[in-house]
Structures are given as structure tokens and as C-alpha cells.
């Protein structure tokens, strides 16, 4: 007998164990072929079989080599629990099972000597979400009748762009008693209150990115919903930059400035202005960390769009050369405003943090009125790749932080001047309309969402550690990978259709929430429409406590 080696990795050390029923398996090989992580393999087992052939029991034994499917036991090709094997197995013979005794966080660090990286979302489950302790509790009835979600019209739009204080509006009364504009005003776009969040063309597969862009165009052109999509850092295909669909895109610039050389080169050929510019300072899922695109995902077209060789692409955690908030305002915003001749709103995205309010205050008090949106990203959001320790342990929840920023604006009489957009785990339970509506009543002008869009496309990951392998370039459903065979698993038209349908459903649900509180335009800051079943949530957010 061999000496026992305690340090060897066994399935019991890994987060998922494969449950395999050899008696059902026909050895078709589908699962092994489908597992993008190579976490299962075909193997041969030596089996002993006892049998008897005569009229009387006369046990004999026979040894044979039997092909089986086995779990790979190493920390590189470990099972992510994605369930693709189960999906493709015609006989229900195989599937992953969560292993509560996993030693994965320890052995991975011990064996690798490096921090754990992954994609996805925070995996430390907290108790019930704050938003689920809040209800839309002010129902219109009697003297203030509710509206009819089917019959009435609703104005479901949110501003993107800097809004002037009323006394600074350059409006004068003309000869016929009509107001006339006497000077330029900052550009403001009224758009759907849900922006498709910033996911870069490198993080997503080209099919996925195209599907999202397709859904965005369809929602605008066929459904009348002015939904905007943010490019994420990493550029935009030139074809899109030169097309009229550019007007639905918010272009992002982040600390790596990836893709911007192409954008700038395309500027003379643009037939439409982009919907806006979003300067990304930080991201909620991994605050303090820059973007991370592993070399595995830097395919040829990504190299072309970003203008880089095949290598790990790390955006610095900071915009180099920005030392102060004032500087970010003056330097970056002015240059982008100037680049598009002050026709395109420029906004900023930061990770929610204990200091968000000070940052917001600085921006809202800036006398030039140029910051056109404050995108605040909370901890529960997702990411393509990050260090696990950042994902799980850094960041700030979005709900109270958004509220703090809104109330800071209220205290100065500046609410609405820099539109507030919130994100970070919104729609996590699948119900974005409710989450967005509550955030709006707490003071957001709108929300942005990324992870949920992946979910619509068929992402199998979740907050309990399932899959979350977006960093590997091996996304089993073709969403966050650049591997041809994997990407082809994704049907972009179906994805676009799902996104469109989800938005249509959400639009109806928004109305179903507006009607009972009797409002026909978005109730931004109408916290009186909300109640909380949790005293501390009520206190913190200044809501009515109910029980």
C-alpha cells in the first residue's frame, strides 16, 4: 500500500464535487467535451466483479478496466460548479455538488503563493438585503387616487448631464413674453433610468458585446425606450464609432485609457455624437483596484481595438496625474467637454466609499457646472476579474451611500444638479424594477446594471460561488471569453431578445410601481413613498418605520 500523502489535493478539498453515476453513463463524452475548465476527464478504473456461473453459488471474481468520468484533482482545473456537464448529459449521470467542507481558499494560496483571482461577484453572503427591507408603502387612494398603469402615460426618463441651478439659467424674457436662451447651457440627455453598465469589449466576448449593443439599438429604435449602453473601458469597434448607433453609446475612459486612441482617430468620421462620456475613477466590486484583463482574453480583435499586444492588461488603480478632485474636474472634464465641443455630457463613476459624500460635495460645488453625472457603484456589483480579497472584503454598500449623497445635495439645495446614478447588486434577486424604483425614491435619478445583463444572457454564476470564472477566459456560456468554440455557444440574437424582453417587462413593472403612488413622473427623492420594516434601516435612510 502506498504511503498516504495528506497534502494531495482531493475533490473534498475543492469547492464542488462531481456526482457521477457510472450505471447511467453511456460514455458519450459530451460532458468532458463541454467542460471549459477541463475539470472532468475520462479515466479507466480497475473494477472487481464477483460472479457465479454454475447451478450452485460458486463465487468467482474478475477484474476489468472500465472507462469512467472522473473529477480532476488540481487547483488549476477545478470544478466551478457551472453545471454545464449536467446540462449536456443526456442521461442525468453527472453534475456538480457544492462541497461545504471545501479547503479551496487555503490550499490555493498555499500551493500557488499568489492571491486568488476570479470574476463574478462578492461571495460572502450577507443577511437579507437592505432593499428587501423597504417597501413602497405610501399607496394613493381616496383623495389622491392612484393612476392606472395601463391607461395613463408616465414619464420614465432620467437626466444625464449637468443641470444648472435655476437662478443661473441663461433665460431671458423675450418681447412676446416667451423665455429665450441667452447663452449656452451644458448638454443634458434625457434617457431611460436604467443604463446598461460598463462592461468592456475585452471582458465580454464579441458576440455578447454585440448582443448588448443590438438590444440597445432595438430598444431605442423599435420599442421607444431610450436605453443607453456604456462601452466600458477598452474602446468600441470602429464600425460602431462611425455608425449612427453611436448616439446610444456612453463611451468610457478609465485609468488605462485603453481604446481611446482609436476613438480619437474616429472622431472626424463620427456621424453622431456619443450619448455621453463616463470617466471611470473606481468600480464598486473592486474599489481601489484597476481593471484586469488576463492575457488569455486578449484576443486579436481586442489587441486591435485597444492597440496593445497580447499581455495581461492592467489598468492602474488611479488616473495617473490626477491629484485632486478639482484637478479631475478641470483637466479631464474640460478636455472631454472640449473634445466634443461641449455637446456631450461628461460624467464620473466612482466606487461607493466612506468618503463618497466629500467627493460628491466637491463636484456639486464646482462653479463651472461641468460634471454631468455622479455614478456611484456599490460593493455588490460584478467584475470580469479581480483579486478575491478585494471582491469579498472591500467596498461599500450602495443604498445608504446613495442616500447620503442625495441628502448632502438637499442640504445645499443642489439636488438634481449632478444627476445621481447608482449601481452595485441592483436586480440581484432578478427584480430590477423594484430595486431601481426604491433607489430612485431614495434620491437616485437612475441606476446602471451590468451583472444582471449577463444573467439575462445566460450566465450561470451566482453569489454563492457558482462559476465566477469570468477572469479565466473560459466562460462556459460564451459571455466572458474570447475562445471561439465557447463564444459560439452564445446565440447573440437570443441574448438580445432576452435583454429587450427584460426591459419591456421592467418598463411595465415601473408603471405598476408608479401608479399606486399616484405619480406620473419618476419620484426622485420621494422617500415618503417608502417604508421600512427594519428600524435601523429606517433610521439610517430617514424612512418611516413600520411593522
Amino acid at each position, binding site marked *: 500500500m502506498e504511503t498516504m500523502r495528506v497534502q494531495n489535493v482531493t475533490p473534498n478539498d475543492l469547492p464542488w464535487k462531481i456526482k457521477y453515476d457510472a450505471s447511467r453513463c453511456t460514455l458519450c463524452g459530451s460532458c468532458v467535451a463541454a467542460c471549459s475548465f477541463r475539470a472532468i476527464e475520462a479515466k479507466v478504473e480497475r473494477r472487481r466483479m464477483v460472479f457465479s456461473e454454475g447451478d450452485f453459488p460458486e463465487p468467482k471474481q474478475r477484474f476489468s478496466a472500465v472507462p469512467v468520468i472522473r473529477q480532476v484533482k488540481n487547483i488549476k482545473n477545478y470544478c466551478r460548479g457551472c453545471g454545464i456537464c449536467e446540462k449536456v448529459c443526456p442521461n442525468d449521470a453527472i453534475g456538480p455538488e457544492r462541497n461545504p467542507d471545501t479547503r479551496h481558499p487555503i490550499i490555493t494560496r498555499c500551493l500557488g503563493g499568489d492571491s486568488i483571482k476570479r470574476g463574478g461577484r462578492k461571495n460572502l453572503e450577507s443577511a437579507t438585503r437592505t432593499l428587501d427591507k423597504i417597501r413602497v408603502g405610501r399607496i394613493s387612494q381616496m383623495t389622491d387616487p392612484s393612476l392606472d398603469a395601463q391607461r395613463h402615460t408616465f*414619464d420614465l426618463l432620467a437626466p444625464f448631464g449637468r443641470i444648472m441651478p*435655476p437662478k443661473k439659467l441663461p433665460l431671458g424674457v423675450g418681447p412676446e413674453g416667451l*423665455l429665450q436662451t441667452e447663452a449656452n447651457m451644458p448638454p443634458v440627455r434625457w434617457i431611460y433610468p436604467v443604463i446598461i453598465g460598463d462592461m468592456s469589449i475585452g471582458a465580454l466576448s464579441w458576440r455578447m458585446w454585440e448582443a448588448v449593443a443590438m438590444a440597445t439599438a432595438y430598444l431605442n429604435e423599435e420599442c421607444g425606450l431610450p436605453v443607453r449602453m456604456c462601452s466600458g473601458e477598452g474602446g468600441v469597434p470602429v464600425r460602431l464609432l462611425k455608425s449612427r448607433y453611436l448616439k446610444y453609446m456612453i463611451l468610457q475612459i478609465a485609468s488605462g485609457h485603453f481604446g481611446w486612441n482609436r476613438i480619437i482617430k474616429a472622431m472626424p468620421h463620427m456621424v453622431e455624437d456619443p450619448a455621453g462620456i463616463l470617466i471611470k475613477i473606481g468600480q464598486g466590486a473592486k474599489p481601489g483596484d484597476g481593471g484586469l484583463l488576463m492575457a488569455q482574453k486578449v484576443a486579436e480583435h481586442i489587441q486591435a481595438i485597444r492597440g496593445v499586444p497580447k499581455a495581461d492588461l492592467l489598468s492602474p488603480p488611479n488616473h495617473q496625474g490626477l491629484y485632486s478632485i478639482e484637478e479631475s474636474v478641470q483637466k479631464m472634464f474640460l478636455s472631454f467637454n472640449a473634445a466634443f465641443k461641449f455637446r456631450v455630457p461628461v460624467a464620473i463613476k466612482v466606487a461607493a466609499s466612506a468618503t463618497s459624500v466629500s467627493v460628491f460635495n466637491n463636484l456639486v460645488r464646482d462653479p463651472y457646472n461641468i460634471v454631468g453625472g455622479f455614478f456611484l457603484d456599490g460593493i455588490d456589483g460584478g467584475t470580469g476579474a479581480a483579486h478575491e480579497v478585494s471582491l469579498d472584503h472591500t467596498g461599500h454598500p450602495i443604498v445608504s451611500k446613495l442616500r447620503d449623497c442625495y441628502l448632502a445635495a438637499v442640504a445645499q439645495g443642489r439636488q438634481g444638479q449632478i444627476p445621481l446614478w447608482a449601481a452595485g447588486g441592483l436586480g440581484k434577486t432578478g427584480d430590477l424594477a423594484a430595486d431601481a424604483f426604491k433607489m430612485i425614491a431614495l434620491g437616485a435619478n437612475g441606476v446602471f446594471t451590468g451583472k444582471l445583463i449577463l444573467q439575462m444572457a445566460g450566465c450561470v454564476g451566482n453569489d454563492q460561488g457558482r462559476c465566477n470564472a469570468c477572469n479565466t477566459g473560459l466562460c462556459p456560456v460564451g459571455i466572458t471569453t474570447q475562445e471561439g468554440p465557447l463564444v459560439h455557444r452564445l446565440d447573440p440574437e437570443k441574448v438580445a431578445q432576452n435583454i429587450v424582453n427584460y426591459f419591456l417587462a421592467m418598463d411595465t413593472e415601473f408603471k405598476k410601481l408608479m401608479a399606486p403612488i399616484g405619480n406620473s413622473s419618476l419620484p426622485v427623492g420621494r422617500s415618503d413613498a417608502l417604508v421600512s420594516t427594519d428600524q435601523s434601516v429606517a433610521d439610517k435612510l430617514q424612512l418611516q418605520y413600520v411593522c
Partner: protein
Amino acid sequence: MCRIGAIKSLNYVHPCQALKLMQSQQKGHDNSGFAMVMHDLGGIFEAYKDMPTLSMACTDEGVKIAEDILHEAGFQRVMQWVPETSDQPGLDIIAMPNYVFETFDYPRQYRNADQKAKEDLLVDMRLILRKALEKDELGFVYSFWPDVITLKEIGDPRDIGTYFNLWEPDKNFTARVITAQCRQNTNYDIVRYAAHPFFLQGYTALANGENTFYLKNVEFQRKLHRGYIGFESDSQCFLYSLHYVHHELGWPLSYFKHVITPLPFEDIEHREDKEQLLAIRQSLAHLEINGPNTIIGVLPDNTMFTCCDAKKLRPVVVGRTEDTVVISSEVCGINEILPDRDWETDIYPHEREVVAIDNNLEVQRWRQ
């Protein structure tokens, strides 16, 4: 529910007309109070149109404090009118001990001051008085403005009328514009300040309805002007928005409607003045109202107007004769005081219009 009414006439009208206007609609309100603001005063006040009149209800101590403050500030009393009250047993009224209507001349240093300086002074004085009398409810200061009188009381409007002898017309106490309302604010605490009409710097507003953007309005208005205080009623927000748009921003009245009930984006898109309308909608988003409402307002130049919320869920009608225009929640009120008018010319304003009546009683209908 609330009922509101207003009379504007070429002739001076006695408040008994306002009482009658409201009394006929009494099934629609809860008879819990009576409040009115009179602009363009006749009778004994006619000779003092340029000098501010203080309207206040208070205790003896309150009178003293207020007068001391005003004298200290240099105001000199030129006229005083104390309504004769008849405190019969059984009247449903929670009366204050004193009702003070005193007209003052400006402090010497202000006599040649410009209009704005005077206006600011009057607002500041009223705010100081209000604050000084707030403690222990020593008194309620409703208005301090030239050519304007305010009366507010808690109780049955009929009995309030009896108490102040308002049922009997006389020539001493009249005005060309009277706005009235018969209900204490039942949504919130019963406080005298919570009764419409509300008044600020020459502007009066009263409303029938419920403003569900109250919180948004309040949170924004608090920072806009020192006079935007109280907020005892959600309808005060209408007054402050009116004052802000017309007085502070200096925009024509028609834009008040664009601020409180902006056009849907779809409609704005097709307008020539799209740029201005969007700018208004953006910068004044927090003054938008929601919920069923009808508003009646009076401007400093005594123009009277009415408009509704955008879904028009509260009624209002405008009736008129040669010399009088009446706005009322219910047509029965108009029938009562203008029985011989041609009712075919009555106007039932729709959700997108402002009906304004100027001093020649010319009725204008502006479509938003």
C-alpha cells in the same frame, strides 16, 4: 375634501360674498375653518394702498410684542381697524383674543427706498414677528403687505362669519379681490398657519388637492428663499413655487404651469421652445407637483388665475358677468353669487391651461 373660491370684481366686494360662495359648497368641505385673503382693498383701507397692513390674530401680550418690534424698526401706525366681534354662546369658533389689522407707514429711511428694498423689509419684518409670537402661540402673523388683509380662523365658517359680523355687507370692509377657503388642513395638525390661502410678498395661493411631491418640493424650497417656511400644508408649496417662478426668476405667469406640471417629454420634443422647456424641466424638477390639484392664485398686480394638475383630477369652474369673475370648486357657489350670469360662458379649465383674469376682467386662456 377641500373647496376653494375666489372673486375678482371691478367694484369693491364685501366678504359676505365670499362666505356665500363657500357656504353653498359646504357639503364638499368639512366646515372646519374659514380663511380669506383680500387684495385691492376698499372701505376704510382704500386711502392707504401704498402702506403695509399687518393682519394678525394674537393674545394681548402678542399685540404688545408685535407693536414694540414694529415701532423699534421705525414703522409708524397710521390706521387701525379692530373688527367688532359678537361672541354669542354656542358659536363653533376657536377664537384668538385679538384680531389686529393695522396699517403702518414705512420707517423714515425707507420712504424713498426702491420697491425691492421695501418688499424685502416687509418680508423680513413679518418673519421676525412670526418668530417672536411663535412661542406659546402668542399670535399668528398672516400678512404684512400694502393693500392686503388676511383672516384665518378655526371653526364653522357660518359661525366665524357671525362672530366677525361678516354676513352683513357694509362699505367699510371691502376688496376687489377675495380668495377664500373653508377647511382647516385635516391631513396634518390643525394649526392656523396651515389654512389656505397662503400669502407671501403680494402673492396669494390656495389649492384644492393633494400634492404628492410635497416632500420633494419642501426639500428644495427650503433652500430657495428665506420666506419659504412653515410648510404646515402641502399646498404652501404652490405659493412658494409661484413666488419663485414669477418673483424670483422673473418669468411670466404662464411658465408657472410649465414648472409645476411640465409637458411630457414626448410633447416637448415637438415644440419650438423645446430648449427652454427642457431647461425648466431640468432645473426645476423638484418644483414639479403630482397628485390631483386645482390652484387659484393672485399676483401682486392683482391678476387672478387658476390652473389644475396635469391629470386634472380636481374640479374648478370660472363664471363671469360684466363686472365680476368668480372661480369656484363647484358651480353652485357661482350660481349663488352670480345667479344672473350667462352660464354658457362658464369656463371649465382643462389640464393644460391657465385661466388668468386681469384688472379689466379680461379673461385669458393660455394653453401650455
